[in-house]
């Protein structure tokens, strides 16, 4: 491993959370974008070849070191780590609405889901998966919600672009709503 690869490993190792390329670039300011990507590739190769239990993944617009899934069962069983708490159906549906329509108000979410989402919103906010991103127009200037980086981290996706497009869904008839606007373009 060359020096840059080592630095990348050390940084990813020490940060625990995903680091964007712009941050990693600070490790060696004269390194080009390509060199950084090359270093990350070299690190992955090294883990692969050495048969390591960790891997570099691209998530939440950054890079992160995580354990390989095949070891999850064993270390969870040994009670060394706990698997993340599962999201409830209500939380998942609320997140789906927010992810696709953000920034979105509580009233809009309730309109789509047909239920009150007060408690769910609060708990998602407390867990840092969503956040208030501003206030909307109209009566009472309602709070608008959006997803956070933790949302992507939780899902293991890079960004909104990796979420399924609405056209790809199996629900045949597209509703005459503006649901597609965010992902459509």
């Amino acid at each position, binding site marked *: 491993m060359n020096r840059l690869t080592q630095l990348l490993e050390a940084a990813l190792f020490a940060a625990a959370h995903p680091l964007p390329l712009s941050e990693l670039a600070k490790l060696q300011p004269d390194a080009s974008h390509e060199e950084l990507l090359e270093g990350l590739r070299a690190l992955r190769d090294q883990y692969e070849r050495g048969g390591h239990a960790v891997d570099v993944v691209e998530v939440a617009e950054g890079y992160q070191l995580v354990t390989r899934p095949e070891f999850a069962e064993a270390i969870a069983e040994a009670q060394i780590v706990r698997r993340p708490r599962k999201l409830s159906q209500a939380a998942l*549906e609320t997140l789906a609405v927010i992810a*696709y329509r953000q920034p979105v108000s509580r009233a809009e979410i309730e309109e789509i889901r047909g239920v*009150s989402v007060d408690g769910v919103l609060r708990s998602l906010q407390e867990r840092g998966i969503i956040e208030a991103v501003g206030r909307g127009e109209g009566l009472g200037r309602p709070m608008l919600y959006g997803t956070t980086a933790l949302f992507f981290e*939780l899902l293991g996706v890079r960004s909104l672009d990796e979420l399924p497009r609405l056209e790809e*869904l199996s629900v045949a008839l597209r*509703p005459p709503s503006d649901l597609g606007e965010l992902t459509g373009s």
Partner: protein
Amino acid sequence: MGAGPSASLRPVTTSLARSGDASFVVRLDTFSGPLDLLLHLIREQEIDITDIPISRVAEQFLQAVHALGLNEAAEYLEMAAQLLRIKIQLLLPRPFDDEEWEDPRAELVRRLLEYEQIRELAEWLAEQARQHGDRFARGWIPEPPEQPDRPVTVGLEELLLAVERVIEAMPEPVLHRVVPRPLDVEGATRRIRSRFDERDEWTLGDLVGRSRSIADLLSSLLAVLELARVGFVRIAQRQPFGSVVIRREPTDAAA
């Protein structure tokens, strides 16, 4: 009441309910709202969503709401009301040539489809989270002892707000001058010496007692130290954080 004819994909939790005529099975707690329940009824009976037999579905919906004990849930009752309203609208005679006529079910269908999409997305999110949940990030980062602390930020405004908080919290200034009270070590020494006439061993707390003022306390402490210095008493602590014991030295030397 085990497995019903429909094996819902969603987790089974509690009670089953079976309606009289139509054989559908619904499970409490597996529904995340009235749209979910409605969609379940429609999809399970393979009803064409663009041509919902409102009369039948409305009845089933009401039965399910009763069976599930959801009578209290405003959201379900609202949906039930909406279904009945649509049922009535459909029963109204409509002019044969009226092009303006809109199917009263259209809005409901739109909402159902929109909701179904959201549910599909929610499923995708759940699966994604489940898969990624098997990848653990680093759990703990030991603090390298020689590393400097994290850099901090401070703003002027923050600082000024802090000043104001401090001033706010400050007690009223003491306006009278505190009368200086000289330490009285001699008096305290006499007092403490006399207490060893009662017994040979005291804890420091008992010996010093509840002093009336800081000056008294300091006087007593200084007196104890002075008595130890001249060999009248010995100060000991039998265990860490234990009480300090003051014991009179055997008096043979003095005698």
